[in-house]
């Protein structure tokens, strides 16, 4: 593989993303985990820029690094976390989970790298503009777009109804 700017940028962003995710698993305080995960989301936005999806990168920063992280921090602050300073012991359950997930990852990586379907030389790359995305979104995928808006409305009302304090009778 030749070393060029895209490779270096991919390497940096992927190391940041995986590092943030590993930190999220290993840290003990919940708020630190939230910050590590926000960092991972930010790195994934950088990967979207590399993949010729600048609109998705902006959306990723707005929705994930901004909205979802803040929502989760609200969830953390509205609940109590008593035993978060204790280091959790390494149990049999964790060992089995590690083995299972490791096996899954090994199988997936093996399939990705041995399949000649993907690795026949340098594939042709298509360049997209944001206008193409808008045309596809509002012409081809018009009905799913409207259905998504209804879904968001339902989720909004559902979240309010679920989180509302029940009246005492």
């Amino acid at each position, binding site marked *: 593989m030749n070393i060029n700017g895209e490779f270096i940028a991919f390497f940096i962003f992927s190391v940041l993303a995986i590092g943030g995710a590993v930190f999220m698993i290993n840290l003990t305080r919940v708020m630190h985990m939230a910050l590590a995960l926000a960092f991972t989301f930010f790195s994934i936005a950088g990967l979207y820029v590399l993949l010729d999806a600048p609109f998705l990168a902006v959306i990723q920063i707005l929705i994930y690094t901004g909205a979802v992280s803040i929502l989760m921090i609200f969830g953390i602050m509205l609940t109590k976390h008593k035993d978060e300073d204790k280091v959790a012991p390494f149990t049999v359950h964790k060992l089995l989970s590690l083995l299972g997930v490791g096996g899954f990852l090994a199988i997936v990586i093996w399939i990705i790298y041995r399949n000649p379907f993907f690795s026949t030389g340098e594939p042709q790359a*298509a360049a997209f503009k944001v206008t193409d995305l808008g045309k596809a979104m509002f012409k081809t995928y018009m009905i799913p777009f409207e259905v998504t808006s209804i879904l968001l409305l339902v989720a909004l009302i559902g979240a309010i109804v679920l989180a509302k304090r029940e009246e005492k009778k």
Partner: protein
Amino acid sequence: MNITSYLALAAILFSIGLYGVITKRNAVMVLFSIELMLNAVNINLVAFAKYGIFPSISGQVFSLFSIAIAAAEAAVGIAILIALYRNKGTVEADKYNSMKG
């Protein structure tokens, strides 16, 4: 750059998220790990949109829908978590066992 690097990165992130979902006892962290898994899948979609056999903008559109649905899922998940916390007084996922037979 070819597509295998992106697919491998997405697989690694997905596996880390899966490990978090299985092992974390804090319900907030389980929700976080689910978000990480959804993000890994989005990387796959965008990578196929650029480097797939048939490059197409549809991958990015699907990714946008996926982000919208993930945001709705996060909002409803936090609402359910707060309702559960109000009733049970804890965020430990192991303690939510009132549906156990």
